[in-house]
């Protein structure tokens, strides 16, 4: 993917929807493309990592043990909490179909927030949505 393609992919993600393309270009240039086959492991439950994934194409499933938590399609993000505050992953994530992901490291996210503190509101909104969708009031 070129940087432009990555930026367009990231702009489909609600977390980055409000970020101007010229700013997102710096994030996109430092993102890593990850291709996963169907059934491939994306996140291992309990692993201590500090990056998030944006789903470009394909579909993922998040599980807590055997319990399916949610499915994630293109335009979703997974692992935001670890990217903000590194902790053991609370759920495992695998690909349901061949999937293309963009991995964004905490350092990149930190830099983005340092230069654009107003983006914190979008991240808070995204996290609140995530907490609500997981059953919290």
């Amino acid at each position, binding site marked *: 993917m*070129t940087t*432009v393609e990555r930026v367009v992919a990231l702009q489909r993600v609600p977390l980055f929807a409000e970020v101007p*393309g*010229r700013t997102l*270009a710096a994030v996109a*240039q430092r993102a890593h493309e990850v291709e996963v086959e169907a059934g491939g492991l994306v996140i291992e439950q309990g692993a201590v990592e500090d990056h998030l994934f944006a789903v470009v194409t394909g579909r993922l499933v998040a599980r807590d043990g055997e319990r399916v938590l949610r499915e994630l399609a*293109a335009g979703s993000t997974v692992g935001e909490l670890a990217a903000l505050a590194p902790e053991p992953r609370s759920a495992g994530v695998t690909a349901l179909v061949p999937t293309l992901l963009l991995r964004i490291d905490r350092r*990149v996210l930190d*830099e983005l927030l340092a230069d654009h503190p107003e983006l914190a509101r979008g991240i808070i909104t995204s996290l609140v949505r995530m907490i609500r969708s997981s059953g919290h009031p």
Partner: protein
Amino acid sequence: MSGEPQQPSGHGAVRWLVAQSVVFGIVAALLGVVANTMFLEAYGAQWLPLTYVVIGAAGAAVSVAVARSARRFDLVRIAVVVLGATALLLLGAWVATLGGGGAWVSGPLLVLFPVLIQLGFVFVGAQAGRILDIAGIKARFPRIIAGFPVGAVVGGLLAAPLVDLLGSTEGLLLATALAQALFTALVVVTGIRYAAFLAVAPGPPPAATAESGPDESAAALGLRRLLATRFVALILGYQVLSALASQLSDYLVFDRAAAQFPDADDLARFLGGYTAVMNVVSIAFLVLVAGPLMRRYGLRLGISANPVVLFAASVVMLVVLGVSGGASVALLVAVSAARILDIALTDGTTRTSINAMYQVLPERLRLPAQATIEGTGVPVAISASGLVVLALNAMPSPLTAIVLATVLVCAAWVWTGLLLHRAYGPALVDALRERRLLDGPVVLGGTAADLHTAERLLESPDPRSARLGLELVAAMAAPEDQPELAFLADDPRPGVRLSALHALAASGDGGARAALADEVRAAEGSGDPDLRARAALALTSLDDVDRLPTLGRLLDDPSAAVRTAALDAVHQGDDAFVPAVVAALDDPGTTVAACDAVGRLGDAVLRVAERVLLRAASADPDSLETLRAVRLARALTTVTEARDALLTRWAGHPDREVGRVVLERLAAAGPAPTGLAAVVDEVVRADVAHAIQVLGAAVTLRREPGTRPAPPAGGPGTPQPPPAGGPPSADGDEPLHGALADELTLVRERVLAALLVRYGTDRLAPVTAVLLDAGRPAPLAIEALEVVLGATAAARVTPVLDSRDPPEERLHRLLVRNGAAAPEGGAHAVLADLVEDRRDVWRSTWVRACAVRAACDRGIADELDLVPAGALGDPMVDEELDRIL
């Protein structure tokens, strides 16, 4: 996105409101004819002043009832009940007159007449205020109100045939009742069609106070407070004086006409012609003149035209009276002309302006306030005019006295209008300020409860909680906390000791400061980064000889957390650390703390800042140099003359992002001094020119789409929703349209920052805050901008700031209002300009990369000169060039 409904386009709603206005005019004409005829026939003119007095009391009572209802019920429900009940009353009056009796009903009807007219205007105006935004009101309300005189003419023409048809004058009551029922029905239909705006129950009061009790009392309290504000008091005074002046001039017309035409038939003919001319002039003014005048000159004209013209006309009356005498035709012509002008201006400009001004009030109190002002103030003024006329008629020269009284009332009206216009701008800004939820900072460490919480957190096995406890301990500064802090200063845990000693030293304890220095020296070499960070933080309370070398070492610590804490300990005078602090700006882990440290270092950083800004001016756009310049400029928060001189030099920085931050830093409470104002004006001119380029490019590319369709209307500045399903597309012009939208957003932010510098944050900060927040409706902010900047200056920039219109319309407005020429050429020329950027106006690698991609997808890349783009050496642009190769 805001949950508020979007304002409708307006045309459909305006049609329904015009229909209401026409039927309302018919009701008024029919009711005026039947009530006056029945009353004069039964009781004579001598009892008319008494009805004036009753009108005041009845109007006040009805308006209070409506205002109270408005706190509990929605607008449509209240209007339907009031208008429907009036229709039933009229029907009852008709029934009472069947068989030839019931002349007594004419008294109540004569009282009902002006009250109903006021309430009718309140209901029509309030609906318009809910459905249209403030710009819509200014442009379309005159057309809505034009329906009233049209209806009045129709009603007047219908009166005679209806009397013949129904067999008597009293029969007109049945026609009036039916017309009133139709008016009610139109309100019902409008309410259903625009339920999202009209069927909204009043919201809760903004803040319940302990003494306000339930919602009802709080709302009443809110209304009383609102009516006591200077702005609302001025509206009330303006409306009362308007009604008083109008009533006096109206009386003069009838008085002089009666004197000029002693024969009843002659008088009737004159009044018929006068009424016809009055309505025709009013309609023509409303339809042809009022809207464009209001759009061009705004509320300044709307508020001042009527009193100024009537004042001038009353002075003319006085002169004519002195020169030609009271019995002259010239005086009759003068008073008639004055009244005709008054009616035309009242309907065309005054009602529109006052309705626009009500938009400043909180929505939940708008209808109660409007009902109170219009429904009470105007009838009371009518009563007062009756008493004034009665009193002046008892004087030796009553005509002269009444004309003189009219002059004086008009002079007071002009003065009130001036005060009202001056108060409008600040009221608008205050309204925008109050509508934003600005939370104050949370202050921790101020109470005994905080210390108790800190101790519990320190006991927690969770290291994060313990860390929070330490931060809370360090923040304790109250005298009553000292014993507990002294106890914690002997804690076996070095982190707790450091935090407690830090708090004690910060509160001025000299002994604690010495102990703290020892603790810092010990902690500095610790293998625990948390402890080193605590030591670094504690340096803020130390000033001994070891502080500087310790701080220098901690600023170079391998841990970002320690470096951040050390940066927090840098204060004014630590000039030796300028290079380290500026270098820390490049590290995302320490950027925020470094920015704060730069702010504290003040003028010591300016020499470095000058160099960084200079390098960014010649660096490639979106490069590391420009990013560093953005961060450094943003960090220059300590206001000094030297800093302002530096920032003024760079206000027009060639890199737009850097320039925006420089402008943001220059904003101060008051307006810019002359030198800076000239620089900022030039920046705005350049940005408007760039906005024209951006919009021109977007419009051209949309008009001549490539292989893939352009994104839907809404254009630059409007976020596009992602398509439902399917992989994201980066094909065709889509990324370029997004890049142009970003570019326009940047220009908008720059113009807002420049306006803040130019006019001062006191006057503009609430306005720009609302305009920067894309999720909010902006009409009131645009209106406030027009008031602060003036209509002409605001018109030049509003198409840049207001993203609600499609790009084609924004471009057209920018070109017309700034006298600029439209960008030339088709899509090919636009893409060539974007890719080659020979004039160095775009200065954005992101835009350029997207343009190269669009040119490639359109198959025209090989027709463009790609050498300048390749020479940039930017990896993002190179990727797109590689696609072509």
